[in-house]
């Protein structure tokens, strides 16, 4: 039983970070109809910045948090403004390749600047100690961070559902021409989506780095966002949270019961299975047309 509880907890914790990353990818898909393959770097760069500043003892944590998220927001906005906005009307695969190229640039720069070092992030003023569930000890700090990540995810989902900003975002995503005729500044909405996505990824990366270690292997976690994105449905905010949690669970249960070397098989088969059985995902809109 304790193995099972440990696995469920592990899945819950990983799912928290995944949910934030996937939420950002849904925002980007709604704005630009592309998958952002640079999202892993969006998550890694802020985590590295905070880790480095903390280890140098140069910038206090909360300032580091704000600055690093600001940096990635600017990078994301630049990617949208300079590159992706100009790919409108090009073949569908061009934006995808553009984000891959951008990912290569960021990846190379991360390698040169941070030299694949490892950093720890310590979040101040978190409760220390641990709680125990039938023999499994869980640190309160990790629990608090996971709860915070889910809380943030749910808050963003509620904002998008119930405020006028959310309504405008949904309108711009569904029909940009009609939305702009209705007086919505579609471009501002799109660039806002990219910024929000980068902020969510950055916070997710810092949250993950504070309970684990900041290292280039965090990119593997970001890759897991793709099965989660597809499972939840590309354009579904609620699906992002569900998909993130589900993939987190599948991952940790695989590691606990089958063996961690089987992870690629169980997690990435989800993509092929969803495409085969239910291409719109669990909660996405059914806009998929077969040919």
């Amino acid at each position, binding site marked *: 039983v304790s193995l099972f509880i440990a696995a469920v907890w592990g899945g819950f914790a990983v799912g928290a970070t995944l949910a934030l990353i996937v939420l950002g990818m849904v925002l980007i898909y709604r704005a630009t109809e592309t998958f952002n393959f640079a999202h892993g770097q969006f998550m890694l760069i802020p985590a590295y910045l905070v880790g480095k500043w903390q280890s140098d003892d140069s910038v206090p944590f909360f300032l580091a948090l704000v600055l690093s998220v600001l940096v990635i927001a600017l990078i994301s906005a630049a990617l949208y403004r300079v590159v992706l906005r100009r790919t409108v009307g090009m073949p569908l695969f061009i934006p995808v390749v553009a984000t891959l190229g951008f990912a*290569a640039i960021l990846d190379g720069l991360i390698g040169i600047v941070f030299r694949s070092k490892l950093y720890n992030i310590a979040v101040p003023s978190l409760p220390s100690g641990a709680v125990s569930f039938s023999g499994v000890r869980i640190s309160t700090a990790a629990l608090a961070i996971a709860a915070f990540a889910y809380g943030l995810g749910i808050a963003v989902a509620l904002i998008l559902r119930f405020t006028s900003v959310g309504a405008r975002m949904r309108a711009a995503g569904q029909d940009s021409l009609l939305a702009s005729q209705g007086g919505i500044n579609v471009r501002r909405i799109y660039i806002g989506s990219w910024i929000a996505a980068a902020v969510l990824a950055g916070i997710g990366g810092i949250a993950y780095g504070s309970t684990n270690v900041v290292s280039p292997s965090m990119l593997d976690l970001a890759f897991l966002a793709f099965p989660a994105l597809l499972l939840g449905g590309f354009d579904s905010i609620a699906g992002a949270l569900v998909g993130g949690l589900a993939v987190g669970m599948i991952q940790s249960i695989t590691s606990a019961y089958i063996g961690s*070397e089987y992870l690629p098989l169980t997690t990435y088969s989800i993509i092929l299975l969803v*495409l085969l059985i239910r*291409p719109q995902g669990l909660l996405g809109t059914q806009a998929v047309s*077969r*040919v």
Partner: protein
Amino acid sequence: MRGLIAALIIVLVLAVWVTEYADGYNSFLFVTFVTSAIAAVGLNILMGTAGQVSIGNAAFLAVGAFTAVFMDRAGVPLGLSVVLAAVVSAFVGLIVGIPALRIRGIYLALATFAAHFILLFFVERYQARTVGDVGFYLTPRFAAEGTGVGYWPVVLVLALGLATLVAYSVSSGDCGRVMRVVRDREGAAGALGIRVARAKLLIFAISSGIVGFAGALAAYVNGTVSATSFTLGLAISYLAMILIGGTDSIVGAIVGAGIISWLPQLSTDITGRIAGGDSAAAYAPQVSQVLYGVLIIFCILVAPGGLVGSFNDLVGRFVRQRSGG
């Protein structure tokens, strides 16, 4: 067509020159270029002609390479083994393409992304069970005649010619027109009676087959095969080759492969100039990663037709000026 034949003849002349005069390192660069060019030609019919993107190129290279390893260990002769590697890769492509290509949109990108991890999982397991981390060692055919590279550059160029022939025959004539309608107007293609899903699957299988063929050849040429060398970054570098050379152009794919194969050498030189010899070796992979990322973005924004497209534009403008003036 004339440009294509000219390009192949240039590569063949280079091959003869390399066989006769080049040193070990330069001939290694050359054979790397030719095997990459074969894969790039295969990818170009998918990306350029049919307008579908695959992120699974590294995985299909791995499928070809590991099929070759498996055949070689079973005692299958080289020629047959390379052909079988192409067939196996094409079949795997068919399996990966079935979930993705029946749906309209960019789902092939996601399916091949998944395939990258799943296929590498299988080849890693196979490698772990047979030889472990060091990877496989094939008798290097590359050094067939003592110290030299032997006749290999020429043989590889003939293989490139074969791949080009296959690519040319599917991207020209009726077949090519069908693919381009599917690329540009998927809905209209269906209305014209083209079986869109079948066309896309077919081209993806052929493309994967050619990429696997290149992987098998590279395995024999290098003599070592290890699962860790087939990374997502490698897959992205093939996308860069197509965009840099120019989409939907076989010559472009060959030119792009040449530039990207030469890039690691170039970036070692650049970092050596800027930061001195020691850090050059340490940072060269990262610098070349940045360089091909920048080239991808540059080609998308400034030169959508790639080098070949820009060259044709220039020639066209020059000819028009001459005839108009």
